[in-house]
């Protein structure tokens, strides 16, 4: 339990730094902006209390916002994603439910489950984020293109990261 808290604290700091220092500088052709830090919310254990989920989302969002001087933008998007997470988990739950201490990951569930879980939440987050950034619906399809392309890149990065954890955990 303590180890888990420590792990997630480290993951929190790592993701914030990665996002702020590296990924925020990536802007492929003006469309694509990966927001990899959402991985933190995705990986939280199933047993995480709902209120804790929201508080963590708020903290993570604020941290990203402070560094990228977009106060409230990432926070609101990430809060929505955290709010949706329990419902999505309930919708796609396997027949025998979740083990309380487990985290969502590729090796514990099949690829299809994980793909749905990640895609839906990442898309929701990016959708809210980009539309808050634009703050209008007049260029709807331009913004939507940005949402889709960036979501694809973020999802790709998340899968790649899962391969790393898969390997490290398989060694153990």
């Amino acid at each position, binding site marked *: 339990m303590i180890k888990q808290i420590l792990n997630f604290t480290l993951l929190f700091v790592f993701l914030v730094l990665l996002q702020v220092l590296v990924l925020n500088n990536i802007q492929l052709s003006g469309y694509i902006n990966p927001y990899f830090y959402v991985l933190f919310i995705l990986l939280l254990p199933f047993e995480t209390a*709902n209120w804790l989920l929201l*508080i963590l989302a708020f903290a993570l969002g604020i941290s990203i916002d402070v560094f990228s001087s977009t*106060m409230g*933008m990432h*926070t*609101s998007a990430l*809060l929505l994603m*955290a*709010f949706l997470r329990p419902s999505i988990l309930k919708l796609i739950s396997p027949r025998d439910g979740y083990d309380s201490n487990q985290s969502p990951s590729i090796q514990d569930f099949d690829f299809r489950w994980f793909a749905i879980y990640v895609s839906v939440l990442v898309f929701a987050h990016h959708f809210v984020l980009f539309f*808050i950034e634009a703050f209008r619906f007049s260029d709807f399809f331009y913004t939507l293109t940005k949402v889709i392309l960036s979501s694809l890149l973020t999802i790709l990065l998340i899968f790649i990261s899962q391969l790393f954890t898969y390997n490290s955990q398989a060694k153990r």
Partner: protein
Amino acid sequence: MRNLLGFLSRNLFFIFFLLLEVIAIFLLIQNNRYQQSRFLNSSNFVSGRVYQSVNNATKYLNLDIINEDLATENAKLKAELANSKIQIFGNNYIINDTIYHQQFEYSETRVINNSVTKANNYITLDKGSFNGIKEGMGVIGPKGVVGIVKTVSPHFSSVLTVLHSQSKISAKLKSQNYYGSMIWDGKDYQYGKLINIPKHVKLFLGDTIVSSGFSAIFPKGLDLATITGIEKPSGNNFYDIDIKFINDFKNLEQVYVVKNVLKEEQLLLEQTTQEGDSDD
């Protein structure tokens, strides 16, 4: 209360989410200039629409006050208009001619008060003694005699019209030189009587009656009335003639005050002659 608490506890997650989301959006709008301006603009748009529709509804309630204001303003503006002011020195038209000496001067005036329904009717003109109008002057309309100036004030004059129990206009037949007096019997403003025409005169319905010019008030030959009925009452020597005035006294607007330049001279002469008679 218990229901409320139950509702809150059941939806605690959602409420907590909403709370945090509101904080986040508050931060977003507080700290990001672009979103702030967009938000303020759109909220101004929304509030503007709301205010506009509220105003659309409430402006009907204020119509009374607005009408009153407008009426007051109208009255003020009307007071500024030229026709509510008095022209002190009017136009008197005089033609100097060496062959025909001017006997009558006309000054145009406007009727500002009128009545036809009383037993003794007066009209008020918008010019008075400042414009040289004096008591006893004649007043004629576009279609003939209107009346005689009774009293004058500096800016107004009151005219005793034909429609008065005391009015007695010296008149004569246009085709013949028999003269009588035109009076009003106080009934209909369109009809009057012509008296003192002797019975031996041949009269026809539709004959025109004109002013005689004897009174030194009106020029000779102004149209007065037409004959509409002729009776020969037994017991006296005169006709009882019904006449219809040519002037429409109900519709008087522009009238002229007639000044007989030679009136004094005529009256003086007549007076001395009569005095001479009595002296003899």
